[in-house]
C-alpha cells in the first residue's frame, strides 16, 4: 500500500516530545517570570500546537504542495485572474536584504533606494494609466476599488455634492457592488447587452444627479473592449459623475489604450495579475490606484514625494481620506511589479498585451466550433465560451468539462462567471504560453466533447480526490481540526 502519511493534516503527525525548532537559552540576568508578567495575565498551559520534527514539516508541506496545480507546473487559463508566468528573477531581486529587511518606521535617510523605487513606480503607473496621481497603499484590487470610491466620496463632499449611488454592469466582478456598499453607497446594476457591452439605454435611465461613480471593467469580463467607451464616459461626466475603471483586465491594453485617454477618472491595478506578482495560493495581491489630478488631494496618505534631491513620505495632505491600512502598502508585490515593468520597458509592455490578445484570439478561433462564443469571433485577452449547447444535447455541463480538463493536465477555466452567460467558461491563456500548449489545450477540449457523458459527470478521475461534497461542508461546517 502506498505510504501517504505525509499528506495527513499535521495534527496526525504529532508526537509528544518532537520539536522542529530550538531557541537559544536566555543570555540576560535571570528574573522571576512573576516580576516580568503578572501571573493572572499568563496562560496556564502551553499553546495547543502539534509537536513535529523539522523533517516532518518539510515532508508534509512538500508533499501537500504537490497536490496543487500552479503556473509553474500547469497551463492555468483561469479567466479574469491572469495566471501568467511569475519570473524567478523577481523573487531574487525582491528578496535582496536591502529590499526585504526594511522596517516601515526606519528613517527616510536609511531607505532612499526603496523610496526611489516606489516613486518611480508611481510615475510609471500614472503613465500606463494616462492619469496623474497614484496611491500605492491598497492591498488588493477590491481594496483599491474601495479606496477609490472613498476618494470619490471625499471629492464630492468637498464640492458640496451629496451623491449616493454607484453603478456597475451586471457582468462586473462581485467586488464592485460590494466595495460600493462598504464605501457607503447604494449599488445600482446596469444591464449588459447579449454581446457583452453596456446597455446604453439602461445606463442612461439610471444615471442621475445622485450618481457618483460608474464602475466599468474594460476590457469587459467577456473579454471585449467596450466599443462605446467614449460615449459612456461622456454620459457619466454629463451627469456629473466619475468613471471608474476596474483594472482587472489591464493585461489586454498595456501601451494599446490608456484609461485616462478613453475617459476613466480613476482605476486600480492588479499587479499580481498584470505585472506578474505570484498569486501565492490566494494572495497577496496589491491594488494601487491612479486618478485624475483633481482627485489627487483626496488619495490615501502617505504618497512618495521627490524634491529633486531627496525622496520622502508625504503625510501633509489635509484633504486625504486617510489611511486604508497600516504602513505603506504591499511593497513586496510592488517591488516585483517594478522589476516586471522595467524588464519590459514601454515598447515591451505593448508586446505583452499584443501577445496576450493574439493567444486568446488564436485559442478562440480553435474552440468556437466546439463551444460557441456568444460575443463573436474576436476577443481581447480572454473570451467566454458556453457549454449550453452540449448541455442541452448531452447533459454535459461547464462544470463537467472543467473537471475533466484536470484529468488532461490542464487547470480549468473560470466557470459560471460572468453570470450573464449560461454555462460559461472564461478562458484567459495569457502571453506566457506557447502555440503548442494552446493547440494541446484545444485538442483536449475537443476530445472531452467526444467522451461518454457518464465519464464526464464523474470527473476528475486522476486527481487525489474526486468532487468534494460541498453541501456537507456548508451544512455541517468543520473549519478546524477537532481537539
Amino acid at each position, binding site marked *: 500500500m502506498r505510504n501517504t502519511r505525509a499528506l495527513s493534516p499535521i495534527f496526525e503527525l504529532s508526537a509528544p516530545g518532537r520539536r522542529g525548532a530550538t531557541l537559544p537559552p536566555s543570555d540576560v*540576568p535571570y528574573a522571576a517570570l512573576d516580576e516580568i*508578567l*503578572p501571573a493572572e495575565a499568563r*496562560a496556564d498551559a502551553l*499553546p495547543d*500546537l502539534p509537536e513535529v520534527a*523539522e523533517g516532518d*514539516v518539510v515532508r508534509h*508541506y*512538500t508533499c501537500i504542495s504537490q497536490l*496543487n496545480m*500552479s*503556473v509553474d*507546473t500547469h497551463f*492555468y487559463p483561469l479567466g479574469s485572474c491572469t495566471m501568467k508566468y511569475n519570473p524567478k*528573477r523577481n*523573487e531574487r*531581486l525582491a528578496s535582496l536584504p*536591502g*529590499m*526585504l*529587511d526594511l*522596517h516601515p*518606521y526606519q528613517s527616510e*535617510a536609511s531607505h532612499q533606494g526603496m523610496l*526611489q523605487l516606489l516613486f518611480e513606480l508611481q510615475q510609471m503607473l500614472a503613465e500606463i494609466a494616462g492619469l496623474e496621481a497614484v496611491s500605492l497603499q491598497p492591498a488588493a484590487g477590491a*481594496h483599491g476599488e474601495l479606496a477609490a470610491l472613498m476618494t470619490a466620496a471625499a471629492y464630492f463632499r468637498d464640492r458640496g455634492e451629496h451623491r449616493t449611488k454607484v453603478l456597475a454592469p451586471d457582468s462586473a*466582478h*462581485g467586488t464592485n*457592488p*460590494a466595495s*460600493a*456598499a*462598504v464605501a457607503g453607497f447604494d449599488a445600482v446594476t446596469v444591464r449588459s447587452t447579449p454581446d457583452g457591452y453596456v446597455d446604453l439605454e439602461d445606463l442612461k435611465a439610471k444615471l442621475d444627479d445622485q450618481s457618483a461613480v460608474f464602475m466599468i471593467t474594460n476590457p469587459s469580463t467577456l473579454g471585449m473592449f467596450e466599443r462605446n467607451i467614449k460615449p459612456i464616459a461622456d454620459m457619466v461626466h454629463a451627469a456629473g459623475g466619475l468613471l471608474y475603471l476596474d483594472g482587472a483586465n489591464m493585461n489586454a491594453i498595456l501601451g*494599446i489604450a490608456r484609461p485616462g485617454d478613453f475617459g476613466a477618472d480613476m482605476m486600480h491595478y492588479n499587479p*499580481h495579475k498584470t505585472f*506578474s506578482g*505570484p498569486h*501565492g*495560493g*490566494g*494572495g*497577496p495581491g496589491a491594488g494601487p490606484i491612479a486618478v485624475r489630478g483633481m482627485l489627487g488631494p483626496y488619495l490615501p496618505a502617505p504618497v512618495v514625494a521627490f524634491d529633486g534631491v531627496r525622496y520622502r513620505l508625504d503625510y501633509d495632505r489635509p484633504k486625504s481620506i*486617510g*489611511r486604508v*491600512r*497600516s504602513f*505603506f502598502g504591499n*511593497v*513586496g508585490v510592488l517591488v516585483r511589479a517594478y522589476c516586471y515593468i*522595467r524588464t519590459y520597458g514601454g515598447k515591451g*509592455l505593448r508586446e505583452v498585451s499584443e*501577445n496576450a490578445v*493574439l493567444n486568446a484570439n*488564436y485559442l478562440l478561433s480553435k474552440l468556437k466550433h466546439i463551444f460557441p462564443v456568444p460575443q463573436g469571433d474576436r476577443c481581447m485577452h480572454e473570451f467566454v465560451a458556453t457549454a449550453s449547447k452540449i448541455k442541452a444535447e448531452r447533459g454535459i455541463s461547464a462544470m463537467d468539462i472543467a473537471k475533466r480538463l484536470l484529468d488532461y493536465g490542464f487547470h480549468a477555466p473560470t466557470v459560471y462567471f460572468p453570470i450573464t452567460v449560461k454555462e460559461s467558461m472564461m478562458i484567459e491563456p495569457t*502571453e506566457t504560453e*506557447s502555440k503548442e500548449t494552446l493547440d494541446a489545450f484545444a485538442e483536449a477540449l475537443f476530445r472531452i466533447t467526444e467522451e461518454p457523458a457518464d465519464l464526464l459527470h464523474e470527473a476528475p478521475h486522476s486527481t487525489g480526490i474526486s468532487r468534494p461534497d*460541498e453541501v456537507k461542508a*456548508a451544512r455541517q461546517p468543520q*473549519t478546524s481540526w477537532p481537539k
Partner: protein
Amino acid sequence: MSYLFNTPDDQRAMLEAIGVGSMAELFAQLVPDEARLHRDLDIPHAMSELEMTGHMQALAAKNTACSSRPCFLGAGSYDHFIPAAVDALAGRGEFFTSYTPYQPEVSQGNLTVTFEYQTYITRLTGMDVANASLYDGATAATEAAMMSLEATGRRGRIVVAGTVHPEYRQTLQTYLNCLGVELVTVGYNETSGTVLPADIAAACNDQTACVLVQQPNFFGSLEEVEAIGRAAHEAGAMFVVSVDPISLGILKKPSEYGADVVTAEGQSLGNPLHYGGPYLGIIACKQEFVRRMPGRIAGQTVDRRGKRCWVLTLQTREQHIRREKATSNICTNQGLFALRATIYLSLLGPHGLRETAELCARKAHYARTLLNGAGGARFTVPFSAPTFKEFVVRDGAGTVEALLADAEQEGYFAGVSLGRWYPELADCFLVCVTEKRTRAEIDGLVGELTSSPVGLTAELTK
C-alpha cells in the same frame, strides 16, 4: 522577448489561423481608434536580467537593511527569527504560483494549509472559527468592527482604546467615515500607559457596537482586558481584541477574558519585514458570529468516494455570490503569508512558541530595567504597567529625533519616536526587543543612548 513564447513565425501562423493579416489589423478590429494610444509608453528601456540585477542591487545599496545591524524597531512590524524551512517550503512554485482554490481537486495542498492555519489561529486565540486571512492587522481590526455593526444591529458608535496602534485607528476612522458611525477614542492613563476600564464604560452608550482594544497595547503594556471586556458586555457591546500572536505563547488566550472577535497582525509569524507589507490579517470569532465573518473559510468534507478533503465553504457570505450584500468586499487575501505562518507555527510547536515569547519578555524586561534611570536619570520609563516585548522610554533631554538619528549613525535602529502620533509623548520613543536581540546588543544600545550628546539639532534626522 523576455517571458514571451511567440516567435515571428508563430505570430504569422496564429494571425493566419485567426484570419487577419497583421497585429495592427487585429487591434483595429478590437479597439476604436479614438481610444488608442498612438505612441510608445514613456517608460525606460527594457533591461535584461543581468542589467536589472545590477540596477536593483544599486537601489538596495541605498537602503540600510535591518538585518545588517541591531534592530529595536517594532510598533506593529517585528524582527523575529524566521527558520530556513519557512522560506524553502513557502517558496515552492506549487504554493507560490497557484491561486484561490476554485478547483478543490487540484488545490488540496492550499486547502489543507488553510485548514491547518485556521486551526492554529482558533487554538491560539480560543475562538471557534478563523478565516483564511485578511490584508493586515489594521484591516482585520476594522473588519471586526464592521462585523459588530451588523451583529449587534447598533450603528451609532465604536469605542476604541487610544492605545490601539494609531494606524489601525486611522484605518478604522476612514472606513467609519463612509458609514456615518462615530468613533470614540478613550485616552490612556498617564501613569500606567493603559486605558482605564471605567473610562471605557463611560464611553459606551446603548448604540455602541463594540469596544476595540489591543493586548499588549501599542506601548507594549498589558491592558486590564478582563475588566474592559466586562465593561463592554455590560453596555451590550461586543468585545474585540487585537493581539500580538507571539504573545499568545505566554499570555492568556483572549477567549479567557471574554473576547468575541480576535484580530492580529500575523507578520511576526514567520513573515519578513518587507517595509510594512504584504502582511497577514488574522481574524477569529465565536461560533455565533461566523455568518458575519468576512473572507474565505476552508472546511472539511468528503469526496464522492468518501475520502476526507477540504473545500472553501460558507461562501454565501462572500462578494462573488452576495455582491453588495456580502459581509465584506474582500476577495484576494494573503494566502502565502498564512502558509508561512502555518509552517512557522508547525516548526515552533508549543515549546518553541512559549520559549520565543518568554525570550522576548525576558530580554525586553532586561532592557527596560537598564534604560529606566540610565544616563544619570536622563532616560526613564514613564509607564508603570507590565510590558511584553516593547516599552516606552522618555528622553529627559527631549531630543528624541536627534537621539535616534545619532544612534542610527552609530549603527543602531534604536526605536520609534512617538511624537508623530502622540504629541504629548514627543520626548518618548518605543523600544522593541525580540528573541533575536542579544545581551551584548542591548548593552550596546544602552551604552550608545547614554553617551549620545544632549542638544544635537534635529538636522541629523534630515
